[in-house]
């Protein structure tokens, strides 16, 4: 089990120097196994710092992080073991590819776990399938492939760890709409089939609203909002006050309400918007 429990987390960069900066302050939350979480917040709100605490890449200044009930910062072995449990795909992960072949790059993580050859092979193939990396590419050099393909190879490299928690920081940054859709579909499919926890950090509200079951909004290093998309987007004004976008359907719904069209409920997907407008029309004609 890979339940995440964070208690009173605080992180200060460059403590004791003139550049001292509090990145995270008093964050406590629990993410149960299998949840699909979206983390939002503008640049510098502390969300990237937060996720790096979940697999001990950063150590808290104060507070504790538990994964599966164990304190991950207990000693250097726990800090290492948590890397297999919590996988992070960073922004622009294609820039971390280094092996001569796609296969060997995906195998890098499992190899570090000192698994047997057969086990590594199983995991590489399984991960490649999830990330839609064609086995025909296995012997090619990752450097000669397209941007979208490289990104999926890098994601496969983390999935191959079979982490109980998969964290992705801006997985669609810089991709065109078709590339974005494919990656997000892959991630949703992975979540459904593996039962792993998935945490996605994103600026794209439309996507986050559509795929996450829980949304956590960071602001100035603290958790400002935490709830279902339903709850979060029922207060679009609060999000805008934090300098965040709202999903396009939500924003259009706000404009419609301002123009005097009575739309009911929390609206954050296109389907909800269309349904609400049709309901309003029906109510108006009755």
């Amino acid at each position: 089990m890979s339940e995440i429990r964070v208690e009173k987390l605080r992180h200060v960069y460059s403590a004791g120097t003139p550049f001292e900066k509090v990145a995270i302050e008093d964050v406590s939350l629990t993410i149960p196994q299998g949840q699909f979480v979206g983390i939002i917040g503008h640049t510098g709100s502390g969300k990237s710092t937060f996720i790096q605490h979940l697999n001990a890449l950063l150590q808290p200044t104060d507070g504790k992080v538990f994964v599966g009930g164990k304190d991950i910062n207990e000693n250097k072995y726990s800090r290492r073991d948590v890397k297999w449990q919590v996988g992070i795909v960073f922004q622009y992960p294609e820039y971390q590819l280094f092996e001569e072949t796609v296969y060997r790059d995906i195998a890098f993580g499992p190899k570090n776990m000192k698994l047997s050859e057969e086990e590594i092979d199983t995991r590489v193939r399984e991960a490649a399938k999830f990330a839609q990396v064609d086995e025909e590419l296995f012997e090619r050099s990752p450097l000669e492939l397209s941007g979208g393909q490289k990104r999926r190879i890098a994601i496969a490299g983390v999935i191959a760890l079979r982490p109980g928690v998969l964290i992705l920081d801006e997985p669609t940054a810089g991709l065109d709409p078709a590339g974005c859709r494919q990656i997000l579909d892959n991630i949703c499919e992975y979540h459904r089939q593996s039962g792993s926890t998935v945490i996605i950090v994103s600026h794209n509200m439309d996507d986050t609203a559509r795929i996450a079951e829980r949304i956590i909004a960071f602001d100035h290093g603290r958790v400002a909002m935490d709830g279902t998309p339903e709850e979060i987007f029922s207060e679009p004004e609060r999000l805008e006050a934090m300098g965040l976008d709202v999903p396009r359907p939500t924003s259009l719904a706000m404009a419609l309400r301002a123009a005097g069209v009575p739309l009911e409920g929390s609206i954050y997907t296109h389907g909800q918007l269309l349904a609400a407008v049709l309901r309003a029309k029906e109510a108006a004609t009755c």
Partner: protein
Amino acid sequence: MSIISFKQVHYTYPGDELESLCGADLEIEEGEFVAVLGHNGSGKSTLAKHMNAILIPDEGKVVVDGIDSSEEDKAFEIRRRVGMVFQNPDNQIVANVVEDDVAFAPENLGVPSEEIRARVDAALQQVGMYEYRTHAPHLLSGGQKQRVAIAGVIAMQPKIIVLDEPTAMLDPQGREEVLSTVTKLCREKGMTVVFITHHMDECIGADKLVIMSNGYIKAVGTPADIFSDVEMMAREGLAVPETTKLIYELNSVGFSLPLGELDEESCAAVIAAAMKK
């Protein structure tokens, strides 16, 4: 006469089999804001690189402000008329101090020192980065870096600015900064702007929208006209604005609303009016 004109331009990258530009025809008028929308690999960047003679057509002709780009000794003349801003802000800033970077192009052009100073200050003011003139670029946000890059280009006093996916690596705030900066340059200073992107919402305010796909220019028109062709956009795998999408779907269940209302207020007004009937 148009300021940039493409006539049946074909281009294939050395070593490639497929053409990256397959007979592009395009006219861009002076003072226009032109948005170019398309997927990765659609030929957008290839189109852009023809506008300042970084690439020269294999076949066909590109004329920029009356100069044919295939005249070898004129590349310099074209480049001083067409400023280019690229996707990765880190890879186009050449100096350790903001104002020194902005001075780079006028220095290359051999402009006298006092005039460079004046141009640099004016350029930084136009993009709202004057207070940062002595800062180190690597400590700025993505949006700020791109604004410095834009200043570095306008210090050259070009007639045209071409921006090749300038927002692809930025967060929403940075994207907004860049878009509003170039919109201002176009509307207030009369500069011709070519804005290449794959975010369709950034095209809504353009005068002219160009849709590219697989090396072909698929459509050219006003954003309202182009987005209204929802079937064509779907065929190209491109999204349309939420407003157009909603009106399109309402129309398919019995409404009859105009499709060209792109901004939220006018779309909301049209729907609100239809409700009262």
